[in-house]
């Protein structure tokens, strides 16, 4: 887990400098200096969408600032929530006068800091709503689904909420669309190897040479079980079964499948997983819509993958298919 970096404590600042240099459509600013927004200011009258989270997950979070997606992003240190100042910076940048939806993953630090920022925003008369990504079925039992962490599924929530905002819905309407998207989305991941946080001198967890851990958190938090590394089809089945058990899409349903790489797993292997997912969905009479296979949400150089499913109705399907574009994802018109 060797790293190409200069000063570990400058990792995030230097990464952001490179990001905005490579993407002139993005701008870095705010009082915190930790807010990425579209260089062209938020369209007046459109509901803004602010997100944020720790660094180390690119393209998440910053990479989804774009048309039809997210308007601004607060950036934390590696694997730590964004500070309250960067959260209010993102809310202000996203604000086009019609209020701001704060849409981010359900992690303690992130929530606390966005809560503080929303309180400040209230004092500035910026109306805020909050929707949390909480798609990781491995992070709490279904009965406490509200306690679940957010993982790769948030990308689909960005897409749905972003399209709703682009359509001109009001804040309550955009928040409703995001909540509906969240209710329809579940994820689970499998980790094969650890990663190393730049300031640490050791990997963030240990795992046997022939082991994998199902449901492990994206920061290396323990998962549901650890077992010998299984065949890709077995891993795909295990993940899919858990998601289908919760979402129970019937024959004839339409779902968005997202096979996501955690960092070091080759795209080739994500396609091998997707092959099985597509096969199984076909067997169950479920139609995959706009499938996504790639590195959408990573944990630095962790090896492994996650699977997300979003069950569509007509409204969600239209939102998912609406045009959008950001540095790392695009849906053509």
């Amino acid at each position, binding site marked *: 887990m060797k790293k190409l970096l200069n000063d570990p404590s400058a990792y995030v600042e230097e990464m952001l400098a490179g990001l905005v240099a490579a993407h002139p459509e993005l701008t870095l600013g705010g009082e915190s200096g930790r807010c990425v927004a579209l260089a062209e200011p938020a369209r007046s009258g459109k509901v803004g969408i602010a997100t944020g989270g720790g660094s180390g997950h690119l393209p998440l979070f910053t990479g989804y600032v774009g048309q039809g997606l997210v308007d601004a992003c607060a950036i934390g*240190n590696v694997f730590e929530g964004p500070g309250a*100042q960067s959260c209010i910076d993102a809310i202000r940048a996203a604000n086009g006068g019609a209020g701001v939806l704060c849409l981010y993953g359900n992690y303690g*630090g992130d929530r606390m800091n966005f809560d503080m920022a929303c309180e400040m925003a209230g004092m500035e008369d910026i109306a805020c709503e909050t929707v949390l990504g909480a798609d990781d079925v491995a992070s709490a039992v279904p009965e406490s689904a509200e306690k679940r962490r957010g993982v790769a599924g948030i990308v689909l929530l960005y897409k749905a909420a972003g399209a709703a905002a682009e359509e001109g819905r009001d804040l309550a309407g955009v928040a409703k669309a995001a909540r509906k998207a969240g209710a329809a989305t579940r994820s689970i991941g499998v980790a094969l190897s650890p990663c190393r946080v730049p300031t640490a001198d050791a990997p963030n967890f240990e795992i046997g040479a022939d082991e994998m851990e199902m449901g492990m958190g994206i920061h290396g938090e323990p998962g549901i079980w650890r077992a010998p590394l299984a065949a890709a089809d077995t891993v795909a089945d295990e993940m899919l079964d858990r998601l289908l058990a919760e979402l129970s899409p019937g024959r004839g349903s339409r779902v968005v499948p997202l096979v996501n790489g955690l960092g070091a797993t080759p795209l080739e292997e994500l396609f091998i997983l997707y092959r099985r997912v597509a096969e199984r969905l076909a067997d169950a009479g479920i139609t995959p819509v706009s499938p996504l296979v790639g590195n959408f949400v990573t944990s630095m150089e962790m090896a492994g993958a996650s699977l997300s499913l979003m069950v569509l109705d007509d409204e969600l399907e239209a939102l998912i298919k609406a045009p959008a574009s950001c540095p790392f994802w695009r849906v053509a018109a």
Partner: protein
Amino acid sequence: MTMTTHDLAGFVAQANEAVQQEEQRLNAADAKLGDGDTGSMLRRVLAAMAKVDVAGAAGLSEAAMALAQAAMKETGSSLGTLVATAAMTFAKEAKAAGNRIEADDMGRVVSAMCDAVASRGRAATGDKTVIDSLDAIARALSAGPATLAGAERAARDALDAFRALPCKVGRARMFPEKSTGADDPGMLAIALLLAQGPRAEA
């Protein structure tokens, strides 16, 4: 005895020294069920707080506010944000008290910090978090004598009492069988950082 900005500076300096000793132990406690960063994060946060010119501040409230801001700038992690919340609450209390906090006020002050942390963390006593440590400390200080040694003892007793209970917040709640018998990293941090603190009266 009235608390001074020097007392506050001394407290931060001691905690900063303590965390340098205890970093790995705290990381290890967090690694059992969390992401293993409690110690390293606290070390960074306390280093940033220790750089604040606390003793030179205009008053207790300004000093505490500067500490809160230093913590908030350094991290957006759960515990770091709660540390900042606690410092900010101390600042508010000090301001309300005209920057004069007596030892006998400390029970009430820590109780206010506990409430603020619980509300920010959306958690409650009994969840096995720093809230339970703060709650125990507030009760001990209110019962008197209001000393740092008493606070330390309360934090240790709370740590011991909660060890056998399951954790109810964060990812750790997924594994009641694993959290039972293990120290909550935040509670452990409070006990360890107070233990190494100055033994003088607060």
